[in-house]
C-alpha cells in the first residue's frame, strides 16, 4: 500500500503543534488589544448632540470658566450639566436668530430638558466622585484631555480600571496646585518653568507631587487602590 501522507507531513505536524502555542498567544493578545481599543472604550468618539456645543469656542475663545456651567463639580460626585437657563443667560441676547440654537430656545420656551448625549460614562457598579479629585489637585484635563480645544466633546481616556489604578497607585505624578485645576494649559514644572507653592519653588513633578500629597493629605496607596474605594 502506498503512503497516504507525504514524508514532509511529519515536519508539518510537528511545526503545527509547536505553532499552535503562538496562535493561541496571538489570539489572546488580539483579544486584549480589542478590549482596550476605542472600539470598545468609545475613546475619541464624537457623539451626536442636540446642539453642536463647542467647548473650544466657549472656553478658550470666550474665556468662560468650567464652573460657570458645571456648577457642582467642586462639591459633589456629579459635575453637573448646565440647564437651558444657563445657555439663555447669554443666548437670550447673542445669536438670537441662529438656527443652530433653535433647540435651546425651544427648550426654554416649553420647559422641556435638552437631551444631551452622555460622553463619559462608567458602568453602574463603579463609584466615581469629582469633588475629591478636584480638591486634591487632579486637573480636569488630566482625565478629560484638552477640553479647550474640542469643538465637539469626546472621551479622551479609556476610563478602564487599569487607567484609574495607574494613577491611584502613584497619585503624585499627576497632582497640581489646587488653583490650577481648571487651567487647561497648565504645564508640569520643569527647570525652565518652575511652579511655586507656598513660596517654595519646584523644578520637577515628583518633588511637587510628593509635597502636594503631604499638603492635601492624600490617603495611602493601599487605601485608594482597595476594591471598595471604587466598588461599593
Amino acid at each position: 500500500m502506498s503512503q497516504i501522507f507525504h514524508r514532509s507531513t511529519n515536519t508539518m505536524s510537528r511545526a503545527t503543534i509547536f505553532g499552535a502555542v503562538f496562535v493561541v498567544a496571538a489570539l489572546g493578545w488580539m483579544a486584549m488589544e480589542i478590549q482596550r481599543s476605542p472600539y470598545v472604550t468609545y475613546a475619541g468618539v464624537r457623539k451626536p448632540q442636540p446642539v453642536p456645543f463647542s467647548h473650544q469656542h466657549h472656553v478658550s475663545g470666550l474665556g468662560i470658566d468650567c464652573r460657570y456651567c458645571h456648577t457642582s463639580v467642586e462639591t459633589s460626585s456629579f459635575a453637573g450639566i448646565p440647564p437651558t437657563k444657563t445657555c439663555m443667560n447669554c443666548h437670550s441676547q447673542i445669536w438670537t436668530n441662529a438656527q443652530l440654537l433653535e433647540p435651546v430656545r425651544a427648550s426654554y420656551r416649553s420647559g422641556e430638558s435638552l437631551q444631551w448625549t452622555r460622553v463619559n460614562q462608567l458602568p453602574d457598579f463603579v463609584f466615581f466622585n469629582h469633588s475629591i479629585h478636584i480638591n486634591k489637585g487632579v486637573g480636569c484635563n488630566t482625565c478629560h484631555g484638552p477640553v479647550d480645544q474640542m469643538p465637539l466633546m469626546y472621551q479622551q481616556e479609556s476610563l478602564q480600571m487599569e487607567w484609574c489604578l495607574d494613577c491611584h497607585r502613584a497619585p503624585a505624578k499627576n497632582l497640581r496646585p489646587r488653583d490650577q485645576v481648571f487651567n487647561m494649559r497648565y504645564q508640569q514644572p520643569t527647570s525652565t518653568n518652575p511652579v511655586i507653592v507656598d513660596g517654595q519653588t519646584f523644578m520637577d513633578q515628583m518633588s511637587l507631587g510628593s509635597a502636594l500629597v503631604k499638603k492635601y493629605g492624600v490617603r495611602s496607596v493601599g487605601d485608594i487602590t482597595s476594591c471598595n474605594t471604587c466598588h461599593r
Partner: protein
Amino acid sequence: MPWLRQISVASSSVGCPILARSLGKSGIPRRSHAWGFLATGILLATIALSSACRIDMHVQPRQNPLSRSDFFADQRSERPPVEGTVARGQLHDDTYFYSGKNGSTPGDYMPFPVTKEVLERGRERYNIYCAPCHSRVGDGNGFIPSRGFSRKPPSFHDQRLQKAALGYFYDVMTNGFGIMPDYASQISAQDRWKIVAYIRALQLSQNATRADVPAGQTVPSLAPQFRGQPGSGATLPVVDSASASHSEENR
C-alpha cells in the same frame, strides 16, 4: 444607523463590556419601538449565546443624576419638591440673608463678618460668574456683551453704583436686573454675599489713596509679573509669588 452598529457590536461577542455599552450605556439615542423590539430580540439571542455574560451590574435599575425616567410625564428622574413643602435647612427664615432687603429697602450691611478668606472666595466666584460680562475690574467692559448684547453692563465705579447699598448688589444677583439674568441657581446665597463684599472692595480700590494703606504694608508700584504661559482664559495667569503677596495685602 445605530441599531445596525448595535447588532454588529453585540454579535461580534468579544466580551461583556461591548454588550453592556451597546445596551444603552453608550448613550446611543433610543430608537422607535419597532426597531427596539427587533434589536432587543437579537440582543437577547446574543446574550443567550454568549454564555455567562451578565450585564445586569452595568445597567442597574436605579436613577443616575439627570438620567431619564419613563415613569414621570416630563421624563425627569430628578423631582422638584412637592408644592407647599420645605426641605430641611431650606426654610430661609433669615430674610435679610436670603433677600438682601429689610422690608423692601436693600440693607447696607453684611450678614456675616468680612475676613480675608471671604474676600478671596468672593474674588474667585466673581471672576467665574461676573467677569465674563463685567470684566475683572468691574468696569463693564467684559468680552461677552461686546458680542451682541443690546445694552452694556454699567461700570461699578460710577457714582450711582458706588453709593448703592450692599443689599442692592445681592438683590441684582438673586433676581436679575433688566437684561441681566439672575444667578440664584448658579451661586449659593453664601457665595453671593461674598461676591458683594468683593465688589465693594473693587469699588474702594478704584478711589483709594496712599493714606488708606495701613502702616507697615507696602503697595507694589508695578503691575504683577506674570510667569510662563498665560492662563487658559478660563483661569488667571500664574503670578510671581513675590508680587502676588504684595497685591494680596493691598486688597
